[in-house]
C-alpha cells in the first residue's frame, strides 16, 4: 500500500511540475533533434535502427552471394568496395570476415538492442504506466545521442582503408588484439571498441531511466501486478542490461590495454609475423568468460522486449486475456535470472575444464523449462480466441513459431556431448538466427505495425503489411531452416568458401537456394519501408483506439503532446487483460474504467474492490 501511495504522490508532483511548463513553445531543435520527450527519442531510436537494419541486411546479402555463388563476378561493386574486390572480381576473404563481423555486431547491438529496446522502452513505458515522461528526460536524450555518436563511429569504420573489425562479433583475442593477424584488427578494431564503449554508456543511461520510471512514476492504481507484460519485459531487460553491460565494458577496456599499452590480460606466448611477443601469462579464455557473461544475457536483452510486445499484441488481437499472466511474468524473471549463469555453454570446447562444462550444461537445460512455459501460454492464449489478423498479430504469431523452432535446437546445442560436433557450424547459425534474430526482428516489426498509429497518428496500409509479412515469414524459414541441414553435415561457420574440402562439398544447390531466398526476403523489406514512410505522411488518420486495446496509451489524444495527457493522468483500476469478459457489453474494458462502473462483468473478488473504490471516491 505504502508503495502505491508514494507513486501516487510522485505522479502528482510531476503533474504540477509539468503544468508550469506547459506554455513554452519549444524551438525546432529542442523539439525534434535534442528532444527530451520520450516519444521523440523513441522515434529517433526507431529511425536509426531501421537505417542500421538496411545496412546489416545488405551486408548479409553480399556475403550470401559469395556463399551461394562462390567466385561470382562482383566487379560492379568495385566503385563501392575498391580494393576489397580482387583482380578476378571476387570478394577478398578478409573482407568477407569483416562483413560477417559487422553484420553480427550491427544486428545484435544496433538493430535489436538499440532499435528494439530503445524504441519501445522509450515510447511505451511512460505511455503505458501513465507518466508524463521518463524519470530524467535529459539522461534519456543523452542516451540517444551517445548511441548516435557510437553509430557514426561504427559507420565510419566500414569505410577505412584497413577495413572494419573482422574477428567475428565476439572479437576473441588474440585475433582482435593483433593487427599483424588480420588487418581489421588495426584501426577498425579501435573504432569498434570506442563505438561499443559509447554504445554501452547509451544503454546504461537508457536502462537506468527505464527502471526508475517503472518503479517511481506509475500512475495511481498501476500496481506491479497490473503492469502490461510489455512493461514487465522492458523492465527486466533493463535490469539485465544494467548488470551485464558493465562486464562487457571491462572486457573491452582490458582489451584496449592489451592492444595499446602492452599489458597481457589475454595474451600469452605468441609468435606471429616472425617475432615472439613479450606477453606472457594472459588467458584468451578469460576474455571469453567476460564476453559471454554479457553475451548470453544479451540474447535475452534482445528477445525479452520482443516477447513482451507480442504478449500484448496476441492478447489484444485474440480478444482474450493473456493466458497465465503470473506464469508469464515469473518465467521472464526466471529466464532473466538463469541467463546470468549459463554463459559458458558457448565455451564447451574452448579448453575450459570439462567439469565446468557439465555444470553449465545442467543450468542451460533448466532454462528450457520457463521458455517452454511461455510457448504453451502463447498457444493457449489463441485457443478459443476471436482472432483479428492485423499485420502486428501475424508477426506475433510468427514470433511464437520462431521462438519454438529456434528454442528446440537449443536443447541440442546446450548438451555439451552433442555440441562437440555442432559448435561453430551452421547449425548454430540456424539456431540463433531463428530464436534470437528472426524472433526479435519479428517482435520489432509487430511493435511497429501495432504502435504506428500512436507514434504518427496515422495507420499503415494493412494489405501491404500482409504481403510484407507472408514474404518475410516464408522467406525466413527458407533461409534459415536449410542451414540446420548444412550444419548437421558439419559445415563450419565463418568460412569464405567450402571448395577446398571434400567433407563440405555437398549442398552447393542448397547454399544457392538459401542465398536466393535471402535476397528475396531482404527485398521484401522495402515493401515495409515504403509503407512506413508513405503512411507517416499519407496514411489514413488513426482512430483513438484502433485495436480496441486496454492499455493506457490509447487514452491519449491521437498525437499526444509533450506530457502525454492534456488533463489529469488517468487512474488505473484493473489489469490490462480484461478482454471478452463475460457479461461485459464490449469485448474489452480499458484499464482506466473503474470496477464500480462495470458491475455486470465483475468477478467475485472484484465486487469487493468495487465497493472500496466507491468508498475511496467519497
Amino acid at each position, binding site marked *: 500500500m505504502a508503495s502505491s501511495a508514494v507513486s501516487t504522490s510522485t505522479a502528482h508532483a510531476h503533474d504540477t511540475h509539468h503544468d508550469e511548463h506547459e506554455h513554452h513553445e519549444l524551438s525546432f531543435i529542442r523539439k525534434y533533434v535534442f528532444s527530451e520527450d520520450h516519444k521523440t527519442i523513441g522515434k529517433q531510436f526507431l529511425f536509426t535502427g531501421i537505417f542500421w537494419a538496411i545496412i546489416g541486411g545488405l551486408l548479409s546479402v553480399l556475403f550470401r552471394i559469395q556463399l551461394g555463388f562462390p567466385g561470382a563476378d562482383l566487379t560492379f561493386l568495385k566503385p563501392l568496395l575498391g580494393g576489397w574486390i580482387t583482380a578476378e572480381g571476387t570478394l*577478398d*576473404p578478409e573482407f568477407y570476415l569483416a562483413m560477417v563481423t559487422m553484420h553480427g555486431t550491427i544486428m545484435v547491438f544496433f538493430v535489436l538492442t538499440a532499435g528494439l529496446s530503445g524504441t519501445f522502452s522509450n515510447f511505451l513505458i511512460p505511455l503505458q504506466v501513465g507518466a508524463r515522461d521518463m524519470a530524467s528526460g535529459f539522461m534519456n536524450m543523452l542516451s540517444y545521442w551517445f548511441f548516435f555518436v557510437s553509430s557514426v563511429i561504427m559507420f565510419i569504420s566500414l569505410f577505412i582503408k584497413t577495413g572494419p573489425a573482422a*574477428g567475428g562479433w565476439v572479437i*576473441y583475442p*588474440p*585475433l582482435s588484439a593483433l593487427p599483424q593477424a588480420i588487418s581489421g584488427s588495426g584501426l577498425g578494431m579501435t573504432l569498434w571498441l570506442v563505438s561499443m564503449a559509447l554504445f554501452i554508456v547509451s544503454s546504461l543511461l537508457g536502462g537506468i531511466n527505464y527502471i526508475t520510471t517503472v518503479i517511481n512514476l506509475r500512475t495511481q492504481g498501476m500496481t506491479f501486478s497490473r503492469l502490461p507484460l510489455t512493461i514487465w519485459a522492458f523492465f527486466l531487460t533493463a535490469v539485465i542490461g544494467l548488470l551485464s553491460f558493465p562486464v562487457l565494458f571491462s572486457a573491452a577496456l582490458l582489451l584496449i590495454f592489451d592492444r595499446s599499452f602492452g599489458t597481457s590480460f589475454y595474451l*600469452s*606466448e*605468441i*609468435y*606471429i609475423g616472425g617475432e615472439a611477443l613479450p606477453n606472457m601469462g594472459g588467458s*584468451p579464455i578469460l576474455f571469453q568468460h567476460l564476453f559471454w557473461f554479457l553475451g548470453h544475457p544479451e540474447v535475452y536483452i534482445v528477445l525479452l522486449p520482443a516477447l513482451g510486445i507480442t504478449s500484448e499484441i496476441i492478447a489484444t488481437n485474440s480478444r482474450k*486475456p493473456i*493466458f497465465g*499472466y*503470473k506464469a508469464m511474468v515469473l518465467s521472464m524473471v526466471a529466464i532473466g535470472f538463469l541467463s546470468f549463469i549459463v554463459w559458458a555453454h558457448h565455451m564447451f570446447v574452448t*579448453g575450459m575444464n*570439462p567439469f565446468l562444462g*557439465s555444470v553449465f*550444461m*545442467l543450468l542451460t537445460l533448466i532454462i528450457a*523449462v520457463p521458455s*517452454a512455459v511461455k*510457448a504453451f501460454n*502463447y498457444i493457449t492464449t*489463441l485457443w*478459443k*480466441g*476471436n*482472432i*483479428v*489478423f492485423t499485420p502486428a498479430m*501475424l508477426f506475433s504469431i510468427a514470433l511464437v*513459431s520462431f521462438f*519454438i*523452432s529456434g528454442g*528446440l535446437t537449443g*536443447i541440442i546445442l546446450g*548438451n*555439451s*556431448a*552433442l555440441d562437440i560436433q555442432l559448435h561453430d*557450424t551452421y547449425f548454430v547459425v540456424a539456431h540463433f538466427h531463428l530464436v534470437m534474430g528472426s524472433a526479435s526482428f519479428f517482435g520489432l516489426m509487430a511493435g511497429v505495425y501495432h504502435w504506428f498509429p500512436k507514434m504518427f497518428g496515422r495507420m499503415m*496500409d494493412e*494489405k501491404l503489411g*500482409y504481403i510484407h509479412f507472408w514474404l518475410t*515469414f*516464408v522467406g525466413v524459414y527458407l533461409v534459415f531452416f536449410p542451414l540446420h*541441414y548444412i550444419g*548437421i*553435415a558439419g559445415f*563450419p561457420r565463418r568460412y*569464405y568458401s*567450402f571448395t577446398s*574440402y*571434400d*567433407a563440405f562439398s555437398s*549442398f552447393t544447390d542448397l547454399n544457392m537456394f538459401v542465398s536466393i531466398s535471402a535476397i528475396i526476403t531482404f527485398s521484401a523489406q522495402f515493401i515495409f519501408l515504403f509503407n512506413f514512410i508513405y503512411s507517416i505522411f499519407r496514411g*489514413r488518420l488513426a482512430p483513438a483506439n484502433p485495436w480496441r486495446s486496454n492499455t493506457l496509451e490509447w487514452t491519449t489524444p491521437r498525437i499526444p503532446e509533450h506530457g502525454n495527457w492534456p488533463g489529469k493522468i488517468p487512474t488505473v483500476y484493473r489489469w490490462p487483460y480484461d*478482454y471478452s469478459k463475460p457479461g461485459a457489453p464490449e469485448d474489452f474494458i480499458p484499464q482506466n474504467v473503474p470496477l464500480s462502473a462495470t458491475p455486470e462483468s465483475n468477478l467475485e473478488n472484484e465486487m469487493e474492490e468495487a465497493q472500496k473504490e466507491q468508498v475511496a471516491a467519497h
Partner: protein
Amino acid sequence: MTNFLIVSALILLLAILFLVFRIQTLVSVLKGSYHQRAGYSNKVNAFLFMAFLVFGLIALYWSYTSSTKDFLPESASEHGVITDKLFWITMGIITIAFVVTHVLLFYFAYRYQYSDKRKAEFFPDNTKLEIIWTIIPAVVMAGLVFSGLKIWTDITAPAPENATLVEIKGKQFGWQVRYAGSDGKIGGYDYRLIDATNTFGMDFSDKSNFDDFVPREIRLPKGKPVQFNIRAVDVLHSVFLPHFRQKMDAVPGMMTTFHFVPKYTTEEMRAITGNPKFNYELACTEICGRGHFAMRMIVVVEEEDAYNKWYKEQKSWLSSNPDYIASVPHSMKNLALEKAGLETETSN
C-alpha cells in the same frame, strides 16, 4: 543502353505498383471496409496459416529425407557412435515437440479466426494445466541432461595411459603435427625458441626432443586410443575432425587435449562411403584470419601394423635439421646425435 532500359522498366514497374496500391486504398475507403472489425483478409490470413502448416510439414518431410544422406557422416570414432545416437534421440523428441506445437499454433489461428457471432472465452489461467506443462518439459530435460552428462564425462575423462600421443599446432594458416619418436615422449618447447625452421619451438636442452619427428600428414592407428595435445602459436584456432566427432580449440599459451579411438581405417571408410577418394579431413573452426577456411590437413588411419612400420621409418626432425645440434648443451651432444639417428662425433 540495356542498363538504361532495365532501369526505366524497373521505374515503370514501380510506378504501376504504386498506382495499383493507390487505387486499392481508395476502393477500400469507398467500400468502407475500414470500418469492419475483420473483413475478407482475415479469412485469407487464417487460411494461409493452415496452408503454411500443411505445405511446411510436407516440405519438412521431403527436405529432411532427401538430405539425410549428407547428414552426420558415418561416425569413425567409438564415442561418435554414442553421441550420434543421443543426437538422433534428441532430434526425435524435438521434432515431435516441433510438430505438435506448430499444429496447435496454426490450427488455433485458423480455427479461432474472428467471427461476429462469437465471443472469445475468458480464460485467464488454470493452475493445473500450467503445472502439467511445467513438469513435462522438466522431466524430459532431466532425462536428456543426465544421458548427456554421462557421455560428456566419459569423452572428456583423462586419456588411457597407452594412448598414442600426437602434438598438433595451429598457426596462420596451417597445421603441423609432431610425434614422440622412439622414446614415446614429446619434448618440451618454449615459444621464444620458435623460428622459421623450428616452428614448434623445440627446446633442445630437453632430450625427449632429439627423436621427435614432424611428418607431413597425420597418421593414426585403428582401434587404439590417440590423444591430441593441441597448441596454437599466434591466434585461436580449433581442431575439428568431423568424422571422429571431435573438436577442441587451440589456444596460445595453453595446451588443450582430446582423445578418441578411430574405428575404421581410411581404406575401410572408402568402402563404407563408396567413395574411392575418401580422406579423413581436419578443419579449423575458430575464426583465425583470412585463411581460416583453408586450414585443411589430411588424416590417415591405418591398421596397427602398418602404422607401427610407418612410425619406425620416420626420420627425426633433428636429423633433417642438423644445424640445431648446435643448440644442444655440450654434455648431451652425443646422446642427441644418437637418438636423432645421426653419426656420433666419437668417430672423429
